[in-house]
């Protein structure tokens, strides 16, 4: 307003803030979207912490902390505007933590976070420019690097304050156990059937399953969070429906239990929270459905016919790579791109 005092006779007097239209904006902002995702993950995360105790806390703190710190440090080094306020690094950290076993050593979590944010996200230009889901890249790298530790799935005894009780010798393989999914997959491969009743596993898988990653403690709470995100319009139903639908259908087609195959392993965490990552999934509606179905097909085919039971990570990463091509297949036809039949006739 002080400019008004400097007006001259000839120059136009600009006294007010101007900006191009539109002058109003919808309420929902990027950090709010991230907060919704965090809120939707929280019930499952807190339930995991409640059941797993200190190790879970350490996994979460190490994963989230390394993600946020990596992004902060990267921006600082590159002299870029700080971006940790968009909260996306916290989401990545939570997803990373929930995709590893609770007793993953804290330094492995930190390596995962550094790889997720540094390699998969910031190196590509930060939020919005990465091709692959950062949390999954982080998980894939630490899983391949410390395969023994990462498949340490012995049922956790529970209790607090015994986080660092992993043997200092590093012989972590010695305490390997197996998840229900791993046992079922091995049974299937070896005998063509199952040594236990899959249907009896639904209850534990839905509500309290202490074998596997932090995100597998309660499938029920993941479904709840996913539904909240769909209802709030944060994620598109097409990806989880395509994903879970094709997992169920294919498992059934291959003679396995569809519900067990949806509930066990990382399918739900992947379908609701990872495959739906905006940046790395298609932007077209039909593309999203195809993308979801592709994830499910890849997931089940590799689960049944590959060496590992847990292939959600690679299913989604594979489809991430295809996402831009899928979008190309579904380029929309703009409104009015029709044959101007009447006009052509009239012009002729």
């Amino acid at each position, binding site marked *: 307003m002080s400019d008004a005092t400097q007006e001259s006779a000839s120059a*136009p*007097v*600009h*006294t*007010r*803030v*101007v*900006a*191009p*239209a*539109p*002058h*109003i*904006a*919808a309420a*929902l*902002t*990027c950090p*709010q*979207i991230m907060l919704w995702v965090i809120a939707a993950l929280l019930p499952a995360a807190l339930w995991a912490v409640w059941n797993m105790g200190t190790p879970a806390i350490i996994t979460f703190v190490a994963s989230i902390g390394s993600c946020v710190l990596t992004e902060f440090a990267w921006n600082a080094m590159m002299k870029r*505007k700080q971006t940790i306020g*968009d909260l*996306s690094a916290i989401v990545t950290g939570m997803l990373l933590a929930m995709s590893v076993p609770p007793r993953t050593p804290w330094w492995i979590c930190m390596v995962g976070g550094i790889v997720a944010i540094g390699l998969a996200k910031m190196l590509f*230009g*930060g*939020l*919005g*420019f990465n091709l692959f889901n950062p949390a999954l890249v982080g998980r894939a790298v630490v899983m391949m690097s410390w395969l023994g530790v990462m498949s340490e799935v012995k049922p956790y005894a529970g209790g607090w304050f015994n986080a660092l009780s992993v043997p200092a010798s590093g012989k972590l393989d010695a305490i390997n156990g197996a998840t229900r999914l791993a046992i079922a997959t091995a049974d299937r491969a070896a005998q063509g059937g199952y040594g236990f009743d899959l249907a009896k596993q639904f209850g534990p898988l839905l509500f309290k399953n202490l074998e596997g990653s932090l995100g597998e403690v309660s499938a029920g709470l993941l479904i709840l969070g996913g539904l909240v995100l769909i209802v709030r319009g944060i994620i*598109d139903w097409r990806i989880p429906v395509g994903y879970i639908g094709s997992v169920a259908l294919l498992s059934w087609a291959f003679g396995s239990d569809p519900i067990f195959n949806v509930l066990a392993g990382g399918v739900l965490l992947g379908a609701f929270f990872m495959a739906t990552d*905006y*940046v790395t*999934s298609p*932007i*077209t*509606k039909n593309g999203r459905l195809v993308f979801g179905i592709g994830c499910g097909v890849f997931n089940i085919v590799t689960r049944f016919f590959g060496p590992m039971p847990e292939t959600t990570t690679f299913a989604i990463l594979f489809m991430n790579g295809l996402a831009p091509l899928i979008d190309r297949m579904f*380029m*929309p*036809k*703009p*409104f*009015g*791109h*029709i*044959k*101007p039949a*009447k*006009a052509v006739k*009239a*012009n002729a």
Partner: protein
Amino acid sequence: MRIRPFAGGTHPPDRKEGTAGRAVRPGPVPDRIVLPMSQHLGAPCTPLVAKGDRVARGQVVGDVEALISAPVHSPVSGEVTDVGPVLTPGGVRAMAVTIAPDAEQDLTTWVPIQAPRDDVRATVRAAGIVGLGGAAFPTAVKLSPPKQFTIDTVVINGCECEPYLTCDHRVMLERAADVIAGVGLIAAAVGAKAVFIGVEDNKPDAIAALRAATNGAEVEVVALKTHYPQGAEKQLIWAVTGRAVPRGQLPAAIGVLVHNVGTAVAVLEAVELRKPLMERVMTIAGAVGDPSNFLALIGTPIETLVEAAGGLLPDAGRVIAGGPMTGAALASLDVPVVKGTSGVVALTENESAPVVDGDQACIRCGRCVEACPMNLHPFAIASHADRRMWNGVERFNALDCIECGCCSYVCPTRRPLVQLIKVGKAALMAKGVK
């Protein structure tokens, strides 16, 4: 119901409660009337008066021999005090005639239009009527569609889908019979048989008033879903007639003409009363003391009207000529109301979209794709325009964009999408891409 919802769109809070119930009252006679010579799309007028001249109400003060143009009339009797460039609502300086109104004004009379009585087109041209919805395209030109097209349908736009604005609402409510009569004149002038008035269903009283006023006339009042941009020409035509305007073509190509409700009334007054376009109904809304609808004299400084509406409230920030989705932010309130000014909206700082610094990354959430009523990929056009990759801008069909602003409105990272798309379109047009 024959209503076809268009794809996409969004629903900003309509905020019409402030003025929807405010009857139109006469605007003040200001101490000066400023009449830009270009208040319409097309060729600017040449001033026909000089400093010191006396002018009468209704006298032509600017005109030009060009197909696409519209003369400018003085809405007051008075003396020309200046002929020279002034700041216009669009933010540019343009030639204008400034008039000091006489102390005594008789607003009930005027210099009648000089045009053959039975020639509606000539009358509308002489009356200086332009589309009052905001685009300000000369109405006489629209009434003379290219010979190869047969107009069978006239659609009157009473949607008023921009938030805050209620001037069309009040016109439909208070002058329903005149709207119907004006529509009849337009339809007869172009030989159209079917006439529709499309109104968003958040104005049930206007719909009822129009239906009551139809009185046997062949006019169908269509209640449309309240959804922005329902009042955009192509979306309105689709909703009402089920016809899509082919890309790059005028609605006339599919036999349709669209006019605003205010334009219909202006046509009626020109034909029946020989009255030129000297006033228009406009809304002053938002952060002002007494939000109002005025019948404002064209050329009234917006400052004067804002004062008449109680003045800006202390928390007023951006002030917009037109609606908040497509209007232009005013650098100064010392600019005149022009024919296309449908309203002035004062937004508080909190209500205003943040002024962006161009640094927002797209997170590919797809909200702009979902909101685009033209089924485009706004994020992709904007990203290409941002990098001056004009081929990409063209490949993603930027020229189909109607600049409604839905994409920017919904963007959670506040990327200036429609703003970048406009830059891209301008670059393509400069290169001659059609």
